[in-house]
């Protein structure tokens, strides 16, 4: 298809991930963006496309000014924060192929660790139907929504708490191999997981993503230009987006357990000309453990209902048949709307992942998620 193998990622950067940073979000975004540009060997003046998902209008232009982008640039992002980072290569490819931009920077960051006001579910509390018909009945915040899906999965398919725990343990073990993972020095094994208290049953705290500060960024350009910039560009083999038709309210989805990965993954795989069996590792949006299991099913790595057994026995750990979230992911490294997953996947495909390196990694898949939206990105060694 038209956009496959047309662009590449030529630079990645991250801040330190911390529970509470001493700097504000604008500084974190700047640092990650500058690191990504330095990794690409590019000056900010070379950037003429900017995607800062979830930022306000003012913040987008402050970042451009702070980085020193003095010329005209194309700004895009029609998807929400959790999806938009992973959909960014699609928007970048459209812009680059359409002649709107040559070099596109995507930056994402959060400062929820230090800027947190009240509950992280606050944006949901401002949705009127939730405010009227869900929150007064305790169906709030997100941990409750996703625990409800996990319970339904357990009821329909016999999925167990130990299988949820297998996802948490895999991510924690991977984080222990990373020098920039918040939970690197807090090991977790299955017996400790099962002995820990419930938060929103069946979820424990280890089933939930981190709340932290930090930012990541990556730079995209045409494959031709990428090859001039560096010997090991990471190629966008395919990217797909999807939505579920029933809207934002998960309580009312006709297929309650299906994420829009059922649409985004086939699109991305078809564009890349691959099957799930061709994928060497995945970096899946992991706000909660159960969503990893749901996505493995929705993307075709196993059948619906088989995600629980699939994650057992070390299959999703480094050295297993399909390593999942080798950086430790958002459960154990940092929650930054999957931008850490993009950065890690690029490093894995460059062979730069050190102790976490997936052997012979040639094809990696990243996902992004926001309720009704999902994006799947297939990256390949250049």
């Amino acid at each position, binding site marked *: 298809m038209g956009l496959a193998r047309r662009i590449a990622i030529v630079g990645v950067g991250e801040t330190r991930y911390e529970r509470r940073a001493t700097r504000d979000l604008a500084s974190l975004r700047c640092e990650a963006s500058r690191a990504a540009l330095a990794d690409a060997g590019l000056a900010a003046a070379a950037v003429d496309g900017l995607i800062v998902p979830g930022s306000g209008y003012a913040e987008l232009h402050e970042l451009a000014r702070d980085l020193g982008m003095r010329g005209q640039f194309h700004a895009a992002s029609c998807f929400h924060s959790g999806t938009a980072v992973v959909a960014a290569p699609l928007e970048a490819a459209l812009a680059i192929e359409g002649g709107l931009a040559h070099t596109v920077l995507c930056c994402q960051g959060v400062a929820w660790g230090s800027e947190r006001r009240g*509950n992280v*579910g606050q944006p949901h*509390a401002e949705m*009127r*139907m939730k*405010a*009227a*018909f*869900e*929150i*007064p*009945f*305790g*169906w*709030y*915040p997100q*941990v*409750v929504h996703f*625990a*409800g*899906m996990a*319970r*339904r999965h357990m*009821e*329909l398919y016999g999925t167990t708490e130990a299988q949820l725990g297998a996802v948490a343990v895999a991510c924690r073990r991977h984080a222990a191999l990373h020098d920039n993972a918040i939970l690197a020095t807090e090991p977790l094994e299955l017996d400790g997981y099962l002995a820990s*208290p*419930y*938060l*929103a*049953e069946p979820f424990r705290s280890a089933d939930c993503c981190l709340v932290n500060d930090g930012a990541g960024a990556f730079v995209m350009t045409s494959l031709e230009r990428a090859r001039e910039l560096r010997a090991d560009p990471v190629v966008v083999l395919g990217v797909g987006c999807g939505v579920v038709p029933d809207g934002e*309210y998960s*309580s*009312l989805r*006709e297929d*309650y357990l299906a994420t829009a990965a059922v649409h985004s993954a086939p699109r991305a795989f078809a564009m890349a000309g691959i099957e799930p069996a061709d994928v060497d590792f995945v970096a899946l949006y992991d706000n909660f453990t159960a969503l990893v299991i749901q996505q493995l099913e929705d993307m075709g790595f196993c059948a619906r209902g088989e995600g629980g057994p699939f994650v057992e026995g070390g299959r999703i750990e480094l050295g297993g048949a399909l390593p999942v979230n080798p950086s430790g992911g958002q459960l154990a490294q940092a929650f930054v709307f999957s931008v850490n997953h993009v950065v890690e996947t690029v490093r894995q495909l460059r062979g730069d992942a050190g102790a976490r390196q997936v052997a012979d990694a040639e094809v990696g898949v990243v996902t992004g998620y926001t309720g009704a939206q999902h994006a799947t990105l297939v990256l390949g060694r250049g």
Partner: protein
Amino acid sequence: MSGVADVAERHLPDPAWSVARPFWEGCRAGELRIPRCDRCGRWVWYPAPLCPDCGGEHHVWTATAGRATLFTWVTVRRAFLPGYRAPYVTALVALAEDPRVRLATFLRDIPTRGLRAGMPVELLFETVSEHLTLPAFRCVG
């Protein structure tokens, strides 16, 4: 009401919001009313401008029998909102009239043998104030 520590602090719906007002009026009258398309009969939940089946614009708030089945549930061990006291069980129940209509609800009378998806539940009402009555569901059988 179990799970509720302090009504004053609690997040409560605005019974005057025009879109939802007939729902709260129904609760005060002891009826669980859901909008129903007067052209094709589809239950339209949440309230929406158009029927998702036929596009009909006229929906009539219609009383339901208050019977439902348990779709999924969460036992909340740490209260996430002010005014609530954990533990409490919050659930989605599927209405007998159309199981696509799911309601978020507190679950009362939890049986000691535990919960199972598909269990029957029935409607009750809990008075919060003179202006507001909330529906809830209890396990039966």
